[in-house]
């Protein structure tokens, strides 16, 4: 059994990663874990130095649930072992720490093809994971 961790954010790029994981490992009974990381927003009263969970945490949890449900539905009929996990904080840190915890064989993740600041920011998540994960990482294009 191969364990695969797929960080997903609901974008088409993370769907690509899900589809690649399905294509490569979906035919046998491997274990897939879908992870969605929700960020904190800065507590302005702390001048951005302190981070707190934003008040409508329930709403964010619902959003995360929807993303995970949606991505999990891609595996329908392929594998029964689909785990879903929501974590809070910096996406790259959470992905790296969670991978250390569950020790998957692979992390399969998307990389956004966007330009400008968004590319820079999103690219930095996959860069950080590539640099710090102790697991083999596939970045899907």
């Amino acid at each position, binding site marked *: 059994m191969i364990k695969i961790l797929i960080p997903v954010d609901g974008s088409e790029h993370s769907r690509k990663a899900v589809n690649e994981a399905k294509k490569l490992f979906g035919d046998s009974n491997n274990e897939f874990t879908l992870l969605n990381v929700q960020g904190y927003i800065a507590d302005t009263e702390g001048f951005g130095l302190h981070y707190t969970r934003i008040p409508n945490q329930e709403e964010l949890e619902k959003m995360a649930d929807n993303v995970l449900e949606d991505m999990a539905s891609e595996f329908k009929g392929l594998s029964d072992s689909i785990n879903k996990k929501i974590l809070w904080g910096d996406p790259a840190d959470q992905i790296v720490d969670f991978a250390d915890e569950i020790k998957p064989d692979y992390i399969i993740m998307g990389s956004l093809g966007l330009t400008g600041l968004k590319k820079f920011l999103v690219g930095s998540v996959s*860069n950080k994971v590539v640099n710090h994960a102790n*697991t*083999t990482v*596939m970045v899907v294009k």
Partner: protein
Amino acid sequence: MTKILIAVDGSDYGKQCIKEGVKFGKYEPSEFILVNVKGYLPQRVDTKSLYAQSGEKNPEAKERGEKILQEAATYLKENFGFEAQTKLMWGEPAEQILNLIDEVKPGLVILGTLGATGIKRFLMGSVSNKVVNHAHTNVLIVKNLE
């Protein structure tokens, strides 16, 4: 035929990259291309060495690179029965790997990151980041040794 491009550096991580390549190569018929990149010598005035003076290809580095590629190809052939093309390239590693990706259009690129420590690891890390950020193809960054 899917092409799998594997960067090898003569370390155990290079071997692990080949093992991973073979695993991914099982899904569809694949063609393997092994690449090793050697840097040009820095341009500086050195009366003892013509090569160092001109920023040329160092014949010792060429020999080392060819040996690494030969050993990797032999490892792939003897353990897994696959033939491979080998390619020795010169210059900045990420740039050269990206050039080769443009040329051969592989379905998967495999790089190792842990074959070195300290500053070298830092530099290699930046190689995989550059390749990941600019390649229009899936990239596998191998971290674990079996």
